[in-house]
């Protein structure tokens, strides 16, 4: 019965060791999918390479379906799986700031570590920026504090908010993803680029 760590089936130290191996899998998949290249990542915003969209949504859907089935079979207790809390204002404002960082820097935090690991100097500089940004937030926390806690909604699932079951929402998500994949395949043919 999972999840293993919250049920104390594995110790804290084992959990940390497994985190390291999970990280290896994460880094491996990101790098081998091309996420160590900022020019591949930025491709989604100009249509010439939609690898981000394909990997990101296939990944989210695979995990979502896995959790739904494991819960159905009684293998995992979803009540003990962490669901990110929703602070609506900071989720939007933080997301907008991150989006600006994405189009300027060409990486997100996870992918920049991957790029840095294979020697991309632009990724290393991006990582340096991350440290500055986190420090900057901590330093100016007073300015953000009100916004940081505004519009707290608890830990709602989007399916609850829409008044449908998790399974039905999952089905809609799969249909939406297939639609986006079709557009992505079309865009890659419409806006092709030389090898980069």
């Amino acid at each position, binding site marked *: 019965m999972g*999840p293993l760590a919250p049920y104390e089936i594995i110790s804290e130290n084992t959990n940390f060791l497994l985190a390291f191996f999970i990280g290896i899998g994460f880094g491996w998949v990101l790098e081998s999918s091309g996420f160590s290249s900022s020019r591949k990542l930025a491709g989604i915003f100009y249509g010439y390479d939609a690898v981000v969209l394909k990997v990101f949504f*296939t990944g989210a859907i695979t995990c979502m379906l896995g959790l739904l089935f494991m819960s159905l079979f009684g293998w995992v207790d979803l009540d003990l799986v962490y669901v990110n809390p929703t602070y609506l204002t900071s*989720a939007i404002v*933080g997301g907008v*700031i991150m989006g600006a960082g994405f189009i300027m820097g060409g990486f997100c935090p*996870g992918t920049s570590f991957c790029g840095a*690991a294979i020697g991309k100097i632009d990724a290393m500089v991006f990582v340096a*920026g991350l440290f500055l*940004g986190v420090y900057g937030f901590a330093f100016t926390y007073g300015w953000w504090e009100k916004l940081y806690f505004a519009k707290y909604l608890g830990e709602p699932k989007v399916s609850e908010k829409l008044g449908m079951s998790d399974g039905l929402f999952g089905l809609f998500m799969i249909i939406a993803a297939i639609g986006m994949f079709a557009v992505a395949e079309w865009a890659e043919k419409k806006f092709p680029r030389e090898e980069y």
Partner: protein
Amino acid sequence: MSNTTTNERSRRYLNPYLGGVLLGLVLLASNFISGRGLGASGAVKSVVATTIEAVDKDAVNTMPFMAEYAESHSGSPMRSWLVFEMLGVLVGGFLSGAIAGRLKLKVEHSPKITSKRRLIFALAGGTLFGLGSQLGRGCTSGSALSGMAVLSLGGFVTMMAIFGTAFALAYFFRRNWI
């Protein structure tokens, strides 16, 4: 000739849908084993908290954001799930790059811009991303990807805000990429 070889190498990427399924399985394993999703920016926060504490122990207490974090992490802030996971990411990324022949020290940029311009934008982008990830309680990994997989409303909102903004601003930064 050497150029062709480089191109052939860089093309040896996984099929993106296969990569997505594998990413989903890693994320699923993370949820099953540890009861939580993947993340990245949280590890940066741990390192920043540790650095501030090392430089000036009192400074942490004058910064409420960091003090609260240090309190919730008994012992060193480096003893955190995300720090171990991100060390793994560095190893996994390095191994994948080594096997595919992609290990190379270089500044990757469009031929239309200089390395210097690329690096300035990388620094600015990283700074914004770092700041935004603290405000948004997680980045593309921890908030958007992992949040979406557990159907968190906040995860979907953050995902749409990140990608929506990047699409909206793409026109203004097009010279950097196309």
